[in-house]
């Protein structure tokens, strides 16, 4: 992908094939996040007053309470802070504190966790990795676009498995 037909865009997200998760619930106030994903970027809000880049998404800044902000694409390269496997055995569980609703129930085993981004935020996300190395903290992963239910797009992370 290129910007204005010029140099390659280092912040552009690749789309990765994986079983679709549930569709997000899009509140109009933060629809810019999902619009940005459709345009191929992972964007967060930067406060126009105090310049804080924030997560979770919110209508106002948690530092200065300003409601003015701009969506800013972030570098998709990150490192695993924590990752866990939702094991196959969880799909056989009756309802309990760890049982999964569909579609996750039918998707085990899969990895999920949190990734530290160079922008200074830690983002939750599914981690696409077949080799298992992404379970190790510090493993480099990249934010990617993932298909969700009803044709929606969400983000996740992918490990460059050898």
């Amino acid at each position, binding site marked *: 992908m290129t910007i204005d037909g010029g140099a390659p865009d280092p912040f552009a997200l690749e789309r990765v094939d994986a079983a679709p*998760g*549930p*569709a*997000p*619930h899009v*509140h109009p*106030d*933060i629809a810019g996040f999902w619009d940005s994903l459709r345009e191929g970027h992972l964007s967060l809000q930067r406060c126009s007053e105090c310049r804080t880049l924030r*997560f*979770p*998404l*919110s*209508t106002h800044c*948690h530092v200065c309470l300003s409601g003015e902000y701009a969506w800013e694409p972030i570098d998709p390269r990150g490192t695993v*802070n*924590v*990752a*866990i*496997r*939702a*094991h196959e*055995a*969880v799909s056989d*569980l*009756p*309802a*309990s*504190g*760890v*049982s*999964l*609703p569909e579609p*996750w129930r039918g*998707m085990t085993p*899969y990895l*999920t*966790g*949190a990734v530290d981004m160079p922008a200074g*935020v*830690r*983002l*939750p*996300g*599914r981690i696409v990795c077949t080799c298992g190395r992404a379970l190790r*903290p510090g493993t480099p992963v990249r934010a990617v676009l993932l298909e*969700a239910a009803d044709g929606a797009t*969400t983000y*996740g992370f992918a490990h460059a498995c050898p």
Partner: protein
Amino acid sequence: MQLNACVVGLGTSDVIGKDPGRSPLRLQFESFRAALRDANLDKADVDGLVTAWGSPRGVDYDEFVVAAGLELTWVSQLWTHGRWTATAIQQAAMAVTTGVAEVVAVVNSHVAAQGYARKLPQMPTSLGAVDEALRDGGGPYGNWTIHGTPGAGAGAALAAQQYMDRYGATAADLARIPVTLRAFAHDNPMAVLRDRELSVEQYLAEPELMGPLRQSDICEMVDASTCLLVTTAERAADVGRPVVHIAGMQGIQSGRDNYVFFSRPGLGAGVSPSYDYVAPKTFPVLERAGIARDDLDGFYTYDPFSPQIWMALERWGFCAAGEAAAYCRDKGIGLDSPLPMNTSGGSLAEGHLYGYGHMLEMVRQLRGEAGPRQITGARALQWGTPWGDALVFTNEQVR
């Protein structure tokens, strides 16, 4: 202002079970009547009520007031979560201390997905509530539901994995917790797993389910109800039962550093920062009770998942950050340890009573009514969760 609040009555539903086939309302009548009998009080003596767990899987305060024909001057209803246990009791203590009510029932009833809740209309989440990740912006969990971590167990598994990655704790270390709690349950006639022994070897043979969590790390969801009656010391003295004082309290610490309910601060759970946590030497809950940490005879914490015990021990400074796994392995949390914990068997083995089972157990211990689980000479017990709310209960031997 000095607290003036005591627990004078406690009760549970006649059954605590996986599927006793009783509605939340029926279970709540059972626990409420049991607590009144225990305190030798009449329903007309009760003028306040607080509940956390409302309809449809529990009973809303107004539903119960009408059904039980109560006349109350003060009521409160919290949010359908397990985190409110201490807060509900604190509200009752504040109500009787300030005089807005004289006798407050802290009463909760709850039915689980494998129990009576099967008879209720389908609800969108396992808690029977609105999915909190659908809050504007995904809420403080950062929209984790859409990332394959849609339940409490996934949040607990992530925090446990962060702990194990950082400090090298192992599955065999974690095993000590469910194994000890199962042994306590063996001595608790009410515990749902009283007849199901567990060894470290059996634990390690269970498959992992979510991250490092196995079946025995996960609480037993049950249909049940609990009730505690709270009143002033003056009124308690008239009742003729051993008096248990609510001697200290401290609220939920809520901030971006503390909001993740399965982690102590410093592990970097959710969006909270990673740093080396150092527990303070003392806490407001202990100062208010006029005791030191070393004066405690036992410690109780909300344990829907085993690693919560590690988190709570470190949060409250019973050992340093990163030492809880070795502490549980070497010193243990049983009756023969320096600090017995969750002696009823807790949520893992007695059954998930949203923490109120622990509160009842603390009262039993301080009355000397805990049978084979009795902590010899128990005088002061603390409740404290990894996210920072706490209570200290004491008996007359401390005053």
